[in-house]
C-alpha cells in the first residue's frame, strides 16, 4: 500500500525557454503629452460612488484621452474595478451601488437612468480578470455580441469574426478550428478571444481589469503587444497590479488610493518624477 507521504510531489514548473519579447515600451518611445490637449473619450468629474453606506470612490475628476492607453494603479480595494464597472454600468447588477457626479462617454451621460444600458454596454468593451469565454465555439464567441445588436448575413459575420480575431492577434492560431469549443484554447488564447469578442462589437473604449493576472509571461507579452496595436483604433483603460506593465504599456497613469485620485499624468512622468509622495511610495513598492 502506498503511504500518502510518498505520493509524488507536484513537478517543478518547467521554465519556458522561448524568448519572451515585450515589443512595447511606450514610456521610452513616446514623448509625454498633456492629457488636456487630447480629445476625451471618457470625462469624469466630481464622481463619487457608494456601496450602501461605504464610499468606494471620492469625487474623482479626470479624463481618459481618446486613442491612448490609460493605466489605473493602486493598492487592492482602492476602487479601480468599481470605476471600470461604472463605465460599462455593470454596477447596475449590484443593488447597493449608487453614484453621483459626472461620467460621460463621448458626451453621453453614463449615469442617467434614461440611458439605454444595452447600447452603452455595446459601446464599452470589457475584458475581465479571468478569461471567461462562453462554452460555445470560437466563432460563436466572437459573433455573439454583434449578433445581439445587428442583423448580419453569413458572409458579413465571417468577415467580422476574421477581422476581430485578427485584431486580437489570434486568427492565425485558430483559423483552422473556428468551430472548436472556446474552452479548448489555452488561458492566454482564451483571454485574446475575450478581447476579440469585445472588439467585435465595435466599442469606443476597451476596459481591461487585470487582464493578464491569470496568464504566463508569454501570453502577457502577447496581450501587451496586442494593446499597442489596438491603440491605433481604440481607447483603452487597463487596471493592473504590475508596475512594469503599467510603465511599459500605457500613455497615461492614474494612481488611486482609498477611493481618491492621488495623481493622474503621463506615464513617463508618474514613473520617473511623481509629484505626490504616496505615488512614489506605491510605485517603488514601499507600501501597497
Amino acid at each position: 500500500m502506498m503511504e500518502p507521504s510518498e505520493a509524488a510531489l507536484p513537478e517543478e514548473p518547467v521554465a519556458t525557454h522561448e524568448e519572451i519579447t515585450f515589443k512595447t515600451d511606450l514610456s521610452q518611445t513616446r514623448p509625454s503629452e498633456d492629457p488636456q490637449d487630447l480629445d476625451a473619450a471618457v470625462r469624469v468629474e466630481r464622481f463619487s460612488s457608494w456601496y450602501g453606506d461605504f464610499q468606494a470612490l471620492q469625487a474623482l475628476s479626470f479624463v481618459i484621452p481618446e486613442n491612448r492607453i490609460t493605466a489605473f494603479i493602486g493598492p487592492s480595494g482602492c476602487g479601480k474595478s468599481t470605476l471600470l464597472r461604472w463605465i460599462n454600468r455593470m454596477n447596475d447588477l449590484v443593488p447597493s451601488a449608487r453614484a453621483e457626479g459626472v461620467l460621460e462617454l463621448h458626451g453621453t451621460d453614463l449615469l442617467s437612468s434614461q440611458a439605454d444600458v444595452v447600447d452603452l454596454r455595446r459601446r464599452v468593451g470589457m475584458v475581465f480578470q479571468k478569461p471567461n469565454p462562453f462554452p460555445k465555439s470560437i466563432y460563436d464567441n466572437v459573433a455573439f455580441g454583434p449578433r445581439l445588436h445587428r442583423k448580419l448575413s453569413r458572409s458579413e459575420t465571417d468577415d467580422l469574426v476574421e477581422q476581430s480575431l485578427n485584431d486580437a492577434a489570434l486568427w492565425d492560431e485558430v483559423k483552422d478550428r473556428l468551430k472548436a469549443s472556446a474552452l479548448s484554447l489555452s488561458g492566454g488564447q482564451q483571454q485574446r478571444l475575450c478581447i476579440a469578442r469585445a472588439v467585435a462589437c465595435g466599442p469606443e473604449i476597451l476596459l481591461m481589469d487585470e487582464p493578464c493576472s491569470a496568464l504566463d509571461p508569454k501570453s502577457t507579452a502577447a496581450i501587451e503587444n496586442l494593446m499597442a496595436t489596438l491603440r491605433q483604433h481604440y481607447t483603452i483603460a487597463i487596471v493592473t497590479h504590475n508596475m512594469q506593465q503599467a510603465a511599459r504599456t500605457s500613455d497615461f497613469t492614474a494612481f488611486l488610493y482609498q477611493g481618491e485620485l492621488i495623481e493622474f499624468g503621463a506615464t513617463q512622468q508618474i514613473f520617473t518624477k511623481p509629484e505626490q509622495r504616496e505615488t512614489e511610495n506605491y510605485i517603488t513598492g514601499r507600501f501597497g
Partner: protein
Amino acid sequence: MTNPSANPTRPIPGRPRSKTAQRVRERLIQAGLVGCALFSILITASIVVILAAEAIQFFRLDEVSITEFFFGTEWSPLLGAEKHFGIWPLICGTLLVTAVAMSVALPLGLITAVYLSEYAPPRLRAVLKPTLEVLAGIPTVVFGFFALTVITPGLISLHEGFEIYNAFSAGIAVGIMCLPIVTSLTEDALQAVPRALRAGAFGLGATRFEVSVKIVLPAALSGIVAAFLLAIARAVGETMIVALAAGSSPNMTLDPRESVQTMTGYMVQIFLGDASNYGPEYLSSYAVAFMLFVMTFGITVIGQKIRKRFREVYQ
C-alpha cells in the same frame, strides 16, 4: 524527506500518534465503507434477479406467449373466458399519462427555474426555493385525491367527453407532483453556471433575457436534461396518483379523456386485489414490473449519456 541538517525547527508539543493504530483505523473504516457499498449493490441486484426469475416463470406458463406479451394489443388477465397478455395497452396508458404530465411539468418547471435563478430578487428566491422543496415532500396520495376530487370534476364541467377516471386528470396531477423536482433541479443547474459567463454576456450588451436564453440555458443544458429525465422516470413509475385517478381499464388508446391503466396501476390492482399468489395474473405483474424496470433503466442510461455528451468543463 526529513533532513536533520536543515534549520532546527521549533519543537511541537505532544507525543507522536501511533502509526499502527492509525493504519488499523483506516483499514476498518475502509472495510466498513466497502461493506455498505456491497450491501446496497447486493440488494439492488437481488431485486433484479427476483423480478427476472418470476418474469421467466410467467413466460413458461402455457397460457402465455412471449410474442403476444411484447406485441399484443389486448390486456385482459382477469376478465373473460380467454385471458390475453399483450402489454401494449399498459405501456400506452403509462406513456399517455407521462406525456400529459411532462407537458405540464417541463415547460412550467423550466420557466419557473429561469425566473428563480435569473430574474427573482435574492430575497424572494430565498423564500421560494425552500417552499418548492417542501412541495416535493407532499405524499403522492394527496395529489391522487386532488386529481379525483378537483381536477376531474373541473375537466368534466369544461368538457363532457371526460370519463370519471381519465388519463388527462391523472397526468396533470403527476405533472404537478413533478413540478417541484423539475424546478429545483433545473434551478440548481442554472445556478451552477459561473457568474463570470453572465458578466461577460451583460458586458457585451445582452439583455437579461438574452443572457438567460443564449448563455445560461445552453451552458446548463446537461443538468437540465438530467432533471427532465429524472422527472420522466418518476412520472413513469408514479403509482398512487394513477391508481386513484386514471382508472383500471387497460385501453389501447391515445385519447387522454378515456380511462386507462398504467403498468404501475396494474401491479397495484394485482397485489391489493384478491388474485391468487401463483396464477398467471399474479405472475404477469412481475413481467410488467420487469418491463417497467427496463424502461426507467433505459431513461437513466440515456440521461447519463446525454449528460456526458453535453457536459462542458469550466476551468
